[in-house]
């Protein structure tokens, strides 16, 4: 699957932002939306592939997936609590 099969409510472009930039941007994004919303963050930082899923699990949200694109990855998360 190359693109998420969900409607994204908020997308944050954190490309070019160094570790832990994208993860902190995702956290900010999640804070700003209601429960149930889907947030996507675009990251070109290889560290995100490790950090983001661990944080999402720890924070009790749903990790919908990581979708690679040209030069970056779109991480998609649903806010659960």
């Amino acid at each position, binding site marked *: 699957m190359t693109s998420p099969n969900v409607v994204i409510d908020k997308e944050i472009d954190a490309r*070019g*932002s*160094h*570790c*832990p*930039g994208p*993860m*902190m941007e995702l*956290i900010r994004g*999640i*804070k700003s939306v209601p429960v149930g919303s889907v947030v996507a963050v675009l990251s070109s930082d290889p*560290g995100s592939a*490790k*950090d983001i899923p*661990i*944080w999402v699990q*720890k*924070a*009790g949200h749903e990790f919908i997936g990581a979708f690679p694109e040209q030069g970056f990855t779109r991480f998609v998360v649903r806010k659960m*609590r």
Partner: protein
Amino acid sequence: MTVKQIVVLGGGVGGTLVANLLAGQLTRKQAQITLIDRIGKHVYQPGWLYVPFGGPPPERWERSERSLLRRSVDLIIGDAVRIDPHERYVEMADGTQIPFDYLVIATGARLEPSAVPGYGEGAYHFYSAEAALRLHAALREFSGGRIVIGVADIPYKCPPAPLEFTFLLEDELRKRGLREKTEITYLSPIGRVFTIESVSQFVTPLMEERGIQYELFFNTEQIDPVNRTISSLEGTTIPYDLLVLVPPHRGATIISESGLGDAQGWLPTDRETLQHKQFPYIYGVGDATDLPVSKSGAAAHFEAKVIAHRIAGEIKGKPSEERYQGQVMCFLETGYGQATQLVFDYTHPPHPPKPSAYYHYEKALLNRAYWHLIPTGIV
């Protein structure tokens, strides 16, 4: 040739150095340089780290801004309230308009403790003179219990400072015979104890050696000052007797109110030319920017040189190709009279050497020699 008006907004490390370097590179016929600062006092903030442990009082780390500026730089003391980037002027609180051809924004970062519910009654910090003194008083009274140290949000200035505080604290408690009676926990918002991986790998074993516990992925949501607990967005709650939490940082209000910043008030700045992404005649230096580097005096110092060269070059008709490569150089106190050094840039992560007394003395030397070396541009 008309005299160009250069306005530098902010008299901290970055602004003072840019103004002095420009004054050295341009004649009065080429440019008039004006620096605006709210308080007219230059503060060396790294000195605050030592205040909670009975180090020199905050006044020792302050000098009059005028005494640090070259004579040809005009100083205006007052609060700037708005920037008009199209008409090119800075408006002061008294309504005066200061016109510019070039503007350098060096307004630093602003603390916003109120962004964390319960912060005011529940937490201490050392990121201002007053707060550092309050923490000193609280530490003097402390006789054992749980101390929790952390950062409320990223970015914050001087990223190693809370770790340095933790190491100095552990050392101090040992000297006072309180270490056995105290549990120390360090909170990190991300998946390791420090943002830069190599530094994290260096620091984690030191913490473990000294029995300092840490909690990862802890993004502060609120503090309960009555029950003395701090809770995270991730659902963890930790009890404390003394909480030291670096408050959330934001950009200066003048940046957001002038429509020049991002959602947090940081200035969108080109990472190499240091120009504002929308207005090339506006530059950003130091903590005010959104650059992906440590908010530090060291970064501001390297950036100031690039900005001065670029502006002076343009005025002289010989454009400079100098670019900022993300250079930062700072020390990290590790306690027991020792420190290490972090040297890095956009493409080279730091490789901290083994902690030693040498780096601790280097840092102490810099703290004293700062006034002569840094704002003047000697180094």
